[in-house]
């Protein structure tokens, strides 16, 4: 078959909303775009475990401790599905991890901000997971089958995390004055970085147009950001707290909230490695990987010596 014919079949499928599967022909740029996006997403899940894991040992009740651990564990699970989805495009998990550690692959910049109080567990759930869901729900309809299917499961868990986060803030907002302040301070710190999660404005987003044509992406950055702001501006009222934007105001004509100017200089600074925790986050991942090297080698050596799986031989336990 000529490439042109293959490309026609590919575009036809995209047009008819038929999923592209791993063995189908696809343009090289489609494959590259998806590897970049899915691996970046997987890395975000894994690096994203760190800021929340930071509060596991200090969680204020046994119930909160258990749900926080379960949440961080869910993120590890999301990382696994996503690495697996990316592996269907002929790249190994090891290669992707190598790209993360060398700085070649990115992860969501939001995780380069520190978690400074217990309320941050609430704000991350409500705002960070909330923004992630806005981005990710349309990905359940992404043209690439394995990615779309992974996203369906991830979105279900993420929406649970978001409710959990909101509930943490709600509890604090009904608590003592000190707890209310803790919640407000946390929202003040996480709000702007959260709305930056949707990426640059549409006219400054280099990959968007082609991704929309290939139905990897369904909505523009600015559309999703606006939707998120509209939702949060209402939800924050339930908390009796405020979003730190003086220009936030309902615009009757647009039927949307107007909002203030995003500090894109900060955004690009953090993307380029100069956020408060970029170095620590990457160092923590590299350390876990390097400290684990002997464990992985031992497991591989043992498996080579003993082709029979251990499970069968320990049946008495």
């Amino acid at each position, binding site marked *: 078959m000529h490439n042109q014919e293959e490309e026609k079949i590919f575009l036809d499928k995209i047009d008819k909303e038929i999923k592209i599967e791993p063995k189908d022909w696809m343009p090289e740029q489609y494959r590259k775009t998806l590897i970049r996006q899915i691996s970046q997403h997987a890395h975000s899940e*894994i690096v994203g*475990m*760190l800021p*929340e*894991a930071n509060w*596991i*040992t*200090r*969680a*204020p*009740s*046994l*119930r*909160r*401790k*258990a749900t926080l*651990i*379960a949440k*961080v*564990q869910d993120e*590890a*699970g999301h*990382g*696994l599905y996503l*690495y697996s989805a990316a592996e269907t495009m002929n790249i190994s998990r090891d290669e992707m991890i190598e790209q993360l550690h060398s700085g070649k692959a990115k992860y969501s910049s939001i995780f380069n901000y520190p978690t400074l109080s*217990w309320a941050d567990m609430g704000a991350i759930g409500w705002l960070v997971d909330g923004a992630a869901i806005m981005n990710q729900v349309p990905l359940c309809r992404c043209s690439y089958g394995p990615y779309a299917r992974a996203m369906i499961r991830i979105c279900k868990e993420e929406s649970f995390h978001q409710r959990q986060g909101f509930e943490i803030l709600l*509890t*604090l907002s*009904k*608590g*003592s004055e*000190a*707890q209310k302040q803790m919640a407000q301070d946390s929202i003040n710190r996480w709000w702007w970085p959260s709305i930056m999660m949707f990426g640059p404005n549409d006219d400054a987003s280099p990959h968007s147009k082609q991704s929309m044509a290939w139905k990897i992406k369904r909505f523009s950055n600015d559309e999703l950001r606006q939707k998120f702001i509209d939702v949060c501006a209402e939800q924050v009222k339930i908390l009796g707290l405020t979003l730190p934007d003086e220009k936030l105001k309902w615009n009757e004509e647009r039927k949307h909230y107007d909002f203030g100017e995003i500090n894109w200089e900060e955004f690009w600074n953090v993307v380029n490695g100069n956020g408060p925790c970029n170095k620590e986050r990457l160092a*923590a991942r590299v*350390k*876990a990987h390097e*400290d*684990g*090297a*002997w*464990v*992985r*080698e*031992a*497991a591989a*050596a*043992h*498996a080579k*010596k*003993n082709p029979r799986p*251990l*499970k069968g*031989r*320990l049946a008495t*336990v």
Partner: protein
Amino acid sequence: MNELINYTLQLADNSLILGHRNSEWTGHGPILEQDIAISNIVLDLIGQARNFYQYAAVLINNSTNQQFNQSTTEDTLAYLRNENEFKNCLLVEQPNGDWAKTILRQFFFSAYQFYLYQHLQNSNDETIAAIAEKSLKEVTYHLRWSSEWIIRLGDGTEESNSRMQKAIDDLWMYTDEFFEASSYELFAANEGFGAGVSLLKKDWMKKVKDVFDEATLSVPAELKQQIKWFGKEGKHSEHLGYILTEMQFLQREYPNSIW
């Protein structure tokens, strides 16, 4: 009644403190799949702790005059007791070290819990029996998982074998505490709600020996008589103070708050 409360608290404290230690791995595990596995074990252990604390809270609330006392809950027990009131054994509060040490600590403890809970399933205290029965399913998995890792690491590479052997040298001395009964454990065994811990030693040793054999690791010689310095009697290592300082800080800093 005090003995039943203390016995229940000991079961809870062991699970909580080991869960706490293991949870320090979450996000930092050597392999993503194992990060998930150890976090699962943490969730089981914290679940067990909560069941036992909730029961202890009921016993305490029933035995004191509620008009004058703030009601006891699972959280007041976990977050507002001091070091010398915690009854966990010394083993579970030891630092994680490397993956070999964490695995070995889990294996020693899970093997102990496995035989202990088999007895406790038949406790004449219905609540203890029910929690033990439910937890035994989890513990069976913890024991299998940690046994598999002991074997992999012992019979893996030269480095992993020597790391395992080092872990054994570090932790072996803490295993005797399992089988030395405290006063409330003796009482519990006599009354039939607890297990005679000295009787568990034979099965435990056999399990350790079997797994170590397969892992090409050697079992250390019988311990010489040590001084009796036991966490189960409220005498801890220096590590527990730091664990509690970290764990309890929000509850201590903002008393009487709802989280």
